[in-house]
Each structure stands twice: as structure tokens, then as C-alpha cells.
């Protein structure tokens, strides 16, 4: 329903579009060099990281309509796989993150198989249960994950092990990650798989009747989404150098991803980026500003914002996500 190539207009419009993109890239590349402030870098890194991961969620949740509230499972898998391979076996996280993505892909296929027949709210609840199972297993499998004590990665100044003293390299890596996922989503929108994903979302039975193997399409979307989410998890681990199941497998993370997409616009390439640009800095600032003074106040405001946005602007900032034709009650 939403157009694959949204930029209409003649060559002039296209040139202007390109110039806008170039300007955006220039700002993104130059800003971290010009503003040498730790807090600003931190907010930039988190914004880009969450934008990228929300973009990954969007592939399954937005394009394919496979709304998952369990992506923390993939995030945590990515984070723990690369970190454990590094801490226990000395494998560089650059390779470990690929292993994490692979493992997440396997679990995504498993989840898809479990949820094969589930639709609507039941799919959502099943993914939620899946992530909770992952969290409880990670919490209790102490010999592997160290449980609630957490897993610490000893810092060493070694780019070969995905660790940097300065925040600048992290900023650019996060930029690369987010830009890569944005490019992938735009390419996906024009690709065959992209059309299949959206056809499956809009009318699964009709898509099936048109000869689309909707099950395979859904599995493919979920696998891609999960693997990219796991990469984000590994990045997160290398940035914070400390992991705890209660955090990386948390429901909050599962919620954060669709939330960013909803605010920005579900099922659009740019939506997760606009959403992250609004949500992440706002929540970091609110936290820095109100966090210590009055516990609860900052999240109350955050929740009020969420309810307002969801009820009065369900198309998100991008505003192009048309609702399903058949109202879902």
C-alpha cells in the first residue's frame, strides 16, 4: 500500500532529494568531529544504534506485519554470543558478532516455526513469551552466562578487539551500522522480497492465493530482522563492556524497538530513524534532567507522550503507513 519509491516529481525534485541526503550525510559525518563533547557523542551513538536496531525490527514488524515484542531475545543473543566467545575463547568480537547473528537467525527460524499459525495479538504474546524464556534461561544458566552477576569485558585499547578508548570510532561505527540498515531497507523496499513481505502483511490469504509462499517470506523477514538485531546487540556489548541478562534480554528492549518505529512510522525505511531521533535524545535528556530528582516522574512523562503519539498519530512522523484494510479488533 505504501509506495516503494516514495520520491515522485521530476528530475528537479530528485536532485533536491539527493542534495538533501548529501547534506544529511555531511552533517552526520562532521557533527561528531565538530562537537567534541562526551555527552553529545554518547547520545549520538545511542540514537544511531537504536535507529539501526529499530530498523532491523521494522523488517519483520513493519514490512511483514510480524509484530514482535520479543526482539530482546535476539539482541541478548548477539550481545552474549560475541562477548562469551571473546571472554572465554579469545575470539575477536568482529568475528563473534557474525556468530551471534547466525545464532539469532537460527532462533528466528525456530520462533517463526512455533508461531507459524498465530496471528494478531497471539503472535505478539508468543514472541513476548519467547523473549521471557530466553531471559530466564540466560539468568539461570550461570555456568555459561554468569547469571545476574553479569559478564564484564576487560577493557584493552585494541581496535582489533572492537574496543576503543575514544568515543569517536564508536560514533562512526554506529553511523555505519545505522546507514547500512537504512540502505538495506530502501533496497528491500524495491526488491521482490520487499513486495512479498508487504503483500503478506496486507492480506496473508490473498498473497498465498497469488502464489507467494507466505511462510517462507515470513521466516526470511524474521531471520534478516533477528540477525541484524543481534549485530546491534554485539555493538551494544562492545560499547558498554558489561552485560546482564536482566538488561540485555529485558522487556524494555523488546518494547523500545517497536516504540521507536511507531513514533517514526511503522513499515517505512525512514520511520525508525525519525523515531530514534526523537525518542532517544529526548529520553536521555529527560533522564539526565529529571532522573535523579524524582524517580518515576521521567517515565510517567515518557508514557504520557507514548499514549498521546500512539492514539493521535498512529501513522508516526513519516505518516505514510496506511492501516490494514480489515480493521483488527
Amino acid at each position, binding site marked *: 500500500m505504501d509506495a516503494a519509491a516514495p520520491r515522485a516529481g521530476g528530475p528537479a525534485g530528485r536532485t533536491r532529494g539527493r542534495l538533501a541526503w548529501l547534506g544529511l550525510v555531511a552533517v552526520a559525518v562532521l557533527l561528531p568531529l565538530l562537537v567534541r563533547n562526551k555527552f553529545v557523542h554518547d547520545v549520538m551513538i545511542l540514537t544511531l544504534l537504536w535507529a539501526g536496531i529499530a530498523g532491523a525490527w521494522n523488517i519483520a514488524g513493519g514490512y511483514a506485519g510480524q*509484530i514482535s515484542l520479543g526482539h530482546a531475545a535476539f539482541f541478548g543473543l548477539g550481545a552474549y554470543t560475541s562477548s562469551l566467545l571473546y571472554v572465554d575463547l579469545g575470539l575477536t568480537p568482529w568475528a563473534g558478532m557474525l556468530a551471534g547473528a547466525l545464532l539469532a537467525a537460527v532462533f528466528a527460524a525456530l520462533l517463526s516455526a512455533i508461531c507459524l499459525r*498465530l496471528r494478531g495479538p*497471539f503472535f505478539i*504474546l*508468543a514472541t513476548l513469551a519467547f523473549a521471557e*524464556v530466553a531471559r530466564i534461561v540466560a539468568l539461570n544458566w550461570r555456568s555459561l552466562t554468569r547469571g545476574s552477576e553479569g559478564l564484564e569485558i576487560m577493557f584493552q585499547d585494541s581496535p582489533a578487539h572492537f574496543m576503543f578508548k575514544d568515543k569517536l570510532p564508536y560514533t562512526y561505527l554506529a553511523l555505519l551500522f545505522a546507514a547500512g540498515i537504512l540502505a538495506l531497507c530502501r533496497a528491500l523496499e524495491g526488491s521482490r522480497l520487499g513486495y512479498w513481505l508487504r503483500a503478506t502483511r496486507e492480506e496473508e490469504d490473498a498473497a498465498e492465493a497469488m502464489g507467494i509462499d507466505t511462510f517462507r517470506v515470513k521466516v526470511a523477514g524474521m531471520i534478516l530482522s533477528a540477525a541484524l538485531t543481534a549485530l546491534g546487540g554485539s555493538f551494544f556489548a562492545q560499547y558498554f563492556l558489561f552485560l546482564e541478562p536482566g538488561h540485555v534480554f529485558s522487556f524494555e528492549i523488546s518494547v523500545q524497538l517497536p516504540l521507536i518505529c511507531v513514533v517514526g512510522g511503522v513499515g517505512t525505511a525512514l520511520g525508525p530513524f525519525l523515531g530514534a531521533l526523537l525518542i532517544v535524545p529526548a529520553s536521555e535528556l529527560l533522564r539526565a534532567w529529571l532522573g535523579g530528582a524524582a524517580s518515576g*516522574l521521567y517515565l*510517567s512523562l515518557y508514557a504520557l507522550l507514548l499514549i498521546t503519539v500512539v492514539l493521535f498519530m498512529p501513522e508516526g512522523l513519516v505518516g505514510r503507513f496506511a492501516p490494514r484494510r480489515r480493521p483488527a479488533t
Partner: protein
Amino acid sequence: MTLALAQLVLSGILIGGVYALIAVGLTLIFGVMKIVNFAHGEFLMAAMYATYWLQALLGWDPYVSVALVLPASFLFGLAVERLVIRPSIGKPHLVVVFATMGLSVLMQNLALFLWRGDYRPVRGALGETTWVLGPLRMNGALVVACAVSVGVTLLVLAWLRYTDFGKGLRATVQDRDVAMLMGIDVARVFSVTFAVGTALVGLAGALITPAYPTYPTVGLSFVLVAYVIVVLGGLGSIMGALLGGICIGVVESLTGYLIATSLNQLFSFLVFLAVLVFRPAGLLGQRPATLAGAS
């Protein structure tokens, strides 16, 4: 050993009765109306705080407070339905999920902001009474909650089956449009059903305060279990919610003792996934979850 086992099963049944009481309200909201209400646990929490404050400020016994908490919860449910649920009907699933989730986060954090995170105990008329049944022991407050749970289940069942409203509700669930054509006020059916579901969880909140302390996130520990029960019992099956609640209570009690307390939640979730996959109609449901979610 047999004695210990019997004691575990009995405790499980009692806890399961409490779960069922919370789940019956959710059966109406989620099972019958198909509204994923993430704030259900916070409705419980609000009722528990109301009971706590009625005791702290006015010295009311929780069993007296029920008379006030129950209608207050009903009105609260009407308001929530009007402000949050109704605007999100007919929109993608994510809207109602996030609207109620936002409500849940809001209520939790308002409670945290207003009353801090302290655990607040309530003393019921029964106090710490333990009733003895042969060699077995039972917590008095849990027995009361369990008995009310059974009674409420039967009442709701009769309400759905024998009243005009119940018939209208069942018709609305089967086919909204046709129900509307038949002259049923669908919007009213939705708001009253939601409010009754909220009132029931409010009742549960007041009744469990003597057994469980009140704190801002107390709802979380019950709400996930309640969802498991609603699906296990068969969506929309009131009797199923009671049986499902008792099953889950017994299973948790046994795994907690025989395997590890930290794993009893794991078991609930695995049961939940297994039911969705292998027996989507639940224990007593007629319509599989898979079909119900398709509309």
C-alpha cells in the same frame, strides 16, 4: 513425601485460585473482546493501593474496602475504555498494545513517584490465620480469595449465559457488524464489558492485599501469568480461566519445590507457548486462538 506433595498441591490450588480471580477479568477483556490490555496488572496494583490507603487512613478492613474498591474499579474501567481503548479500536494491533502499555508504564511510575517503591502490607480480619485441614495447612486469606474466585466465576458464567447483556456480548464477539444491525449497542457492550473486567481485577486486588504486599510493580508478577491462564483455559472460556488458573498454580508450586523457584516462571511461559502451538483452543475453548486472531 506424599504429605509434602499433598501440601504442595493444596498450596498450588489456593494460589491458582488467586490467579484465576485475576484471570477472569482478563478473560473478558482479552479472551472475549480480544483487547491486549497490558495495563491489567496495573489495575490490580491500583486496587491494592486503594485498599492499602483505606486501611492506612481510615482503618478499613480490606474485606470492607471491597465495597468501595469494586465500584471504583468499574468506573475507572469505564474511563479507561473511553479514553484509551475506544480510540484505538479498528486501528492496527500495535496501537492498542502501545496505548495500554503506555498506560501501564504511566500507572507504575506514578505510583513510584507518589508512594515510593516500599512494600506495603495490609492486615486483613483474618490476619495470619492458618486453617488446618487434617495434616495440611492453608493460609486463610488465600482460602477466602480462592472461594470468591469460584463464586465470581460462576456469577460471570451465568451473566454471560442467561442475561440479555450476555447474549448481546456473545453476539458482538461473533460478528460485530451483524450484532450492530440486530440493534445491539456495540459500543456500550464494549465499555461495560471492559469495565466489568476491570472491576473483577479490582476485586482481586482488594482480596489479595492480606496475602501479598503492595508495591508499584506488583502487577507485573501477576499479569503475565494471567495471560498464560487465559490462553491455557481457552480464550473467552470463563470456566477455563478457573481451571487454567488452578493448573498453573499447582504447576508453579510443584516446579518451585521440585526443580527451582527461579524456574517456575519459565515453566509457565513454556506451557503458554506449547498451548499456542499444540492446542490453540486451550483446555475448554471452542475456537482456536489462531482463528480468533485472524479477524
